[in-house]
């Protein structure tokens, strides 16, 4: 595929690339990342996204883009709320997969001597949920309230405080969520999974602030060098997966009714204003609220684990919690006019000016704290990247390395890891991902989000 180079960080797939594209697709990457991006189908998928009915502006791909199903992971598309479509595949199966960063009253020096004990306590207190039960039990009424109100339910049950809501995107609750748009099957899948991490690339990391790039912003969040922080990466678990499954199937049917055609069935969609589109958005909002509650419960368990090891006086205040698999109703400037749009972010983080953005690196490598910039509002519907982005398939990652070897290697670098499964370590080894430094460099230099701090892991728990 020939890409038009705009500058060192921007590459264009013109809408003339293939029939059916309604707009150009813009790829944010440097030459090195682009080389990796070209290895899979993700650029083709970005071009497919440009075919979505009602798309406004450009189809966008972040520097961590890699091949997904339908949408690429790291893809952003805004569609007109009046005549556009919503696509569950543009959000993904893990609705409101996202990250929450907690600060702490502890420093690296205080935590290091008891690190092994701490990681073990966290591993005991936070189930992965795969083959393990949740510590949170939900009645039917409780589950409906979680879906409707999000983490407020957890706070009412003693897990966290109002301050947590102040530091969560949408205060953890997308309005219009309807528990009755969520199938019984989805509720059954999610019921025993609230407060669980899941497997794959989900994790909880104990990190310290290694370097600060923006003292003023870091200070606003009480972050200083060597401060211990906790990064939680997980989503809506089986409930969200089933919501996506249910609505891909329903919208696949509805496409015939509305005479819609997409290049990949996994991009099944329906007009936003149609009953099917509205129902999906109500169910997606409920699943998103479940995910925010999930991270709230995990944050509460992490606070408990820290207090058991370091005493009751230890506090882990929330810095921010942000989704990176979601569709949001927002107002953006398009061609000089304000327009109501639904922004699909699949593996992309909302990055409004001055809003905290967290970019987790691969296991054992640095993560970044950034803040959204004006450039994101002008170019990417207020979005930035969400992680390092895979370059290696899971089977390739597993070849020639054992879980024990990875654990030992990380330990030699001062990182204690506990994982429920061997695959949690081998499939997620650092080499399976792109270089986080390059990814962050691109969003920083393209003016989408600015570096605030680099965070280095010292403890990891995984499913």
């Amino acid at each position, binding site marked *: 595929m020939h890409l038009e180079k705009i500058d060192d960080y921007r590459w264009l797939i013109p809408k003339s690339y293939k029939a059916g594209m309604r707009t150009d697709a813009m790829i944010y990457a440097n030459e090195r990342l682009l080389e990796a991006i070209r290895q*899979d189908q993700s650029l083709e998928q970005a071009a497919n996204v440009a075919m979505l009915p009602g798309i406004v502006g450009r189809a966008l791909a972040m520097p961590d883009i890699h091949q997904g*199903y339908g949408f690429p992971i790291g893809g952003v598309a805004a569609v007109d709320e009046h005549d556009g479509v919503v696509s569950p595949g543009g959000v993904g199966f893990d609705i409101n997969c996202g990250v929450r960063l907690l600060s702490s009253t502890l420093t690296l020096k205080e935590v290091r001597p008891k690190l092994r004990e701490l990681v073990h306590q966290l591993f005991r207190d936070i189930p992965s949920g795969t*083959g393990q039960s949740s510590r949170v039990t939900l009645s039917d009424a409780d589950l409906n309230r979680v879906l409707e109100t999000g983490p407020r339910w957890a706070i009412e049950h003693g897990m966290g405080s109002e301050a947590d809501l102040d530091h969560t995107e949408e205060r953890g609750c997308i309005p219009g969520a309807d528990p009755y748009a969520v199938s019984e099957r989805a509720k*059954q899948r999610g019921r025993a999974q609230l407060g669980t991490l899941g497997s794959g690339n989900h994790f909880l990391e104990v990190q310290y602030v290694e370097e600060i790039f923006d003292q003023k912003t870091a200070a606003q969040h009480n972050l200083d060098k060597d401060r211990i922080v906790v990064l939680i990466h997980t989503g809506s678990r089986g409930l969200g997966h089933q919501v996506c499954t249910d609505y891909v199937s329903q919208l696949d049917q509805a496409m015939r009714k509305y005479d819609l055609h997409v290049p990949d069935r996994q991009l099944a969609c329906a007009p936003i204003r149609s009953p099917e589109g509205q129902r999906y958005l109500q169910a997606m909002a409920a699943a998103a609220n479940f995910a925010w509650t999930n991270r709230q419960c995990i944050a509460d368990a992490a606070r408990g684990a820290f207090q058991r090891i370091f005493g009751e006086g230890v506090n882990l205040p929330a810095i921010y919690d942000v989704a990176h698999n979601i569709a949001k109703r927002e107002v953006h400037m398009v061609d000089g006019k304000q327009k109501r749009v639904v922004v699909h972010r699949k593996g992309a983080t909302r990055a409004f000016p001055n809003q905290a953005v967290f970019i987790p690196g691969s296991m054992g490598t640095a993560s970044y704290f950034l803040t959204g910039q004006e450039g994101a509002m002008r170019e990417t519907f207020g979005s930035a990247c969400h992680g390092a982005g895979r370059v290696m*398939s899971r*089977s390739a990652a597993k070849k020639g390395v054992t879980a024990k070897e990875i654990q030992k290697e990380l330990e030699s670098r001062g990182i204690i890891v506990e994982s429920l499964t061997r695959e949690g370590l081998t499939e997620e080894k650092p080499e399976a991902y792109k270089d986080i430094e390059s990814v962050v460099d691109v969003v920083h230099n393209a003016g989408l989000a600015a570096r605030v701090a680099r965070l280095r892991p010292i403890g990891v728990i995984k499913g």
Partner: protein
Amino acid sequence: MAPWFELLEHTSDVGILARGANREEALIAASHALASILVDPAAFRPVEERYFRAPGSDEAAQIVNWLNEILFFFDTEGIVFVEFAIDSWTSHEITGRAKGERFDAERHELRTGVKAATYHQFENHAIPGGWELRIFVDV
């Protein structure tokens, strides 16, 4: 053609390529493949039975829904299936049964959680001497 499967490379997800003498055998081979992504199936016994119902407007939707039944029972009851039987496959749905055992951390080993079966790069067609099915799952 004896039932057979292999797992395919994909940057973020996992693909299944399954073959059998006919579409039923190919789907059963794909079912075994999916179980092998979740766990090491060797240690599971066929001691509990569940009924599967996989409706759909076409074969692709029915196959996706059948495989999603495996994920549903794993998430809700912790059951891993090691035997599959298709009772009927009409233009509207597949019905069948599966036997397996609940996951027990003392005896069983987990591998990778699977979110869903997808339509991405889906293929389902006759090949010389049998049937081939390709499906990607989101992990």
